[in-house]
């Protein structure tokens, strides 16, 4: 096992010392490249009040390639599919080594505030979001209550 790059150590330290409001990212005890992430649903969004679990993994050539991030908590969102995969440009072709774990998680939080049904990943969700936004938001709120507020399973 190669030594952990200083950048990863520094990023992990900074995430502990100066946490981003509404986001916690804790490295796994066994694997320092694997982070347990919890993002709180942004206010004034259907995800408000929810605590969403994510997993984040830093691949071998991080920061030259993007971290791999996935929602573990089920979420009703047009840009997140049923397996928790996220449609976000900075996780794909717009990745740059100047970005960090922090900026990635902030972007994910922003995606919760502003779903983008025109660039969907979960098609049925996106269709409903466009056809009947009120109902889609109701669904999202319901899923948030059902899956993201059950504190016993967190």
């Amino acid at each position, binding site marked *: 096992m190669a030594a952990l790059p200083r*950048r990863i150590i520094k990023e992990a330290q900074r995430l502990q010392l100066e946490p981003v409001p509404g986001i916690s990212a804790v490295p796994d005890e066994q694997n320092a490249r694997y982070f347990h992430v919890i993002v709180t649903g942004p206010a004034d969004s259907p995800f408000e009040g929810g605590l969403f679990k994510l997993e984040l993994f830093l691949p071998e050539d991080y920061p030259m390639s993007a971290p791999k991030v996935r929602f573990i908590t089920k979420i009703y969102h047009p840009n997140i599919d049923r397996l928790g995969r996220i449609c976000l440009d900075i996780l794909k072709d717009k990745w740059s080594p100047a970005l960090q774990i922090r900026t990635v998680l902030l972007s994910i939080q922003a995606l919760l505030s502003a779903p983008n049904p025109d660039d969907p990943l979960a098609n049925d969700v996106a269709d409903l979001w466009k056809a009947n936004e009120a109902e889609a938001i109701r669904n999202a709120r319901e899923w948030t209550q059902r899956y993201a507020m059950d504190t016993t399973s967190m």
Partner: protein
Amino acid sequence: MEFILDFFRSLFNTMLALLSFGKKTVKNTLNINVKTNDQVLNIELDRSLEIKEVKEIVSEKLGVSTDEIKIIFAGKELTDSTTIAECDLGQMSFLHAIKTKRRTEKPASMPLITVEEEDSVVVPVEDHSSKPLCETLQDLKLVQNDENVETTRKAHFFVYCYFCKKMCRGKLRVRCCKCKECAFTVYQDPRCWDDVLKPSRIRGLCESNEDHPCTENESGNSPFAEFYFKCAEHSLGLENDFAVPLKLVRINEQNVPCLACMDVCETILVFPCEFRHVTCLDCFLQYCRSRLLERQFLAHPDIGFTLQCPTGCPNSFIDEIHHFKLLSPEEYDRYQMYATEEYVLQAGGVLCPRPDCGMGLLVEPECKKVVCQNGCGFVFCRDCLQGYHIGDCIPEMNQIDMNRSCEYTVNPNNAAEARWEDVSTAVTIKVSTKPCPKCRTPTERDGGCMHMVCTRSGCDFEWCWICQTEWTRDCMGAHWFG
């Protein structure tokens, strides 16, 4: 017994002496070649010597008086008070001693024109001598009108040295672009890299031939300076032992953290983008490796096979490909191989499909039958890359497999692995990949959605794994996830 002890003691001392010699402890004297109009004097000079004293030594050997001699070094006439230590001289370096009978003649009478910079015509001071270039020269700007960088620091240069086979500290030298002699003084220090790297930007006075001084043209304009670099870490005592400048590598005097590892490193690489993004050399190499393995270098029409700033800034291509020489020799070989393959493909050629061959072949566009000349001799069809055949190409094997109803269900991947060598690789590729509809690069889908982006650098075609045509909104609606 005493004798043996003494022997070992002396042996030990010899070893010590050898060791300290190996470390190249700073010797106080330098062996310098002083090149005069017609001969080369080899002189041992103390580092603390002043140019005045050098002139005395030289004048004695030449039999002329000291004020008839000018010492020229790296485009500058050195002042009497300059010390040898101030010049970036190495062992066996060259100084130029010019006999000058007409001390009163001032080159100021020559027309002074600086190219493309009307407002900066410099009138030389009366006394033409100065400190050496390595003392006066300030850090060169990457571009001429670069306001981002304060250039008040002394210049440092890094070069790729073919002799040392690594990145070394470099020394800037100047010679006359006409006669290639170094008895040449510049009218003006270079201020940006273009001044140094592009020809015909800075003029100077050539004094190699006293009777017929070099001129640019018939009207007698001063000749232009030609700048070149030498490695500061080895000395062969050769005048034309050049090194390639790595202009993006700098000393990190502004303490900018590396954008990838966030460490503040001593030597950095500054990308030629608008923001002057900085990486340390380790991260630069990691970036190159990662891009190389993913074949993400781009064949730039003017520069060659190169990379952009890792943050994707526009117009940020590394325009001196010697920076990639910092990779290991094996990695650089791979870089060259990919570059050549890319060149062949862009020129409309094909690569021989035989395993372990891959010879690049440039063939006429209408030619279907390709012979691997100078390679393995394989004769193949340009379209399907199989052995040459008459008539239409046989359709892709996986398409047959998919459409045929089989009595036994066999996992095609398992079946492919269970084949005898040679065949299995080709079959695996066929079974597990589909060609990019645009450039035909075999592409494997190892998960995720059906939206494919061609990984071949420069193609980037977006296509649908199911339709094998360009990715459309309909694909997104109908079968994004299959």
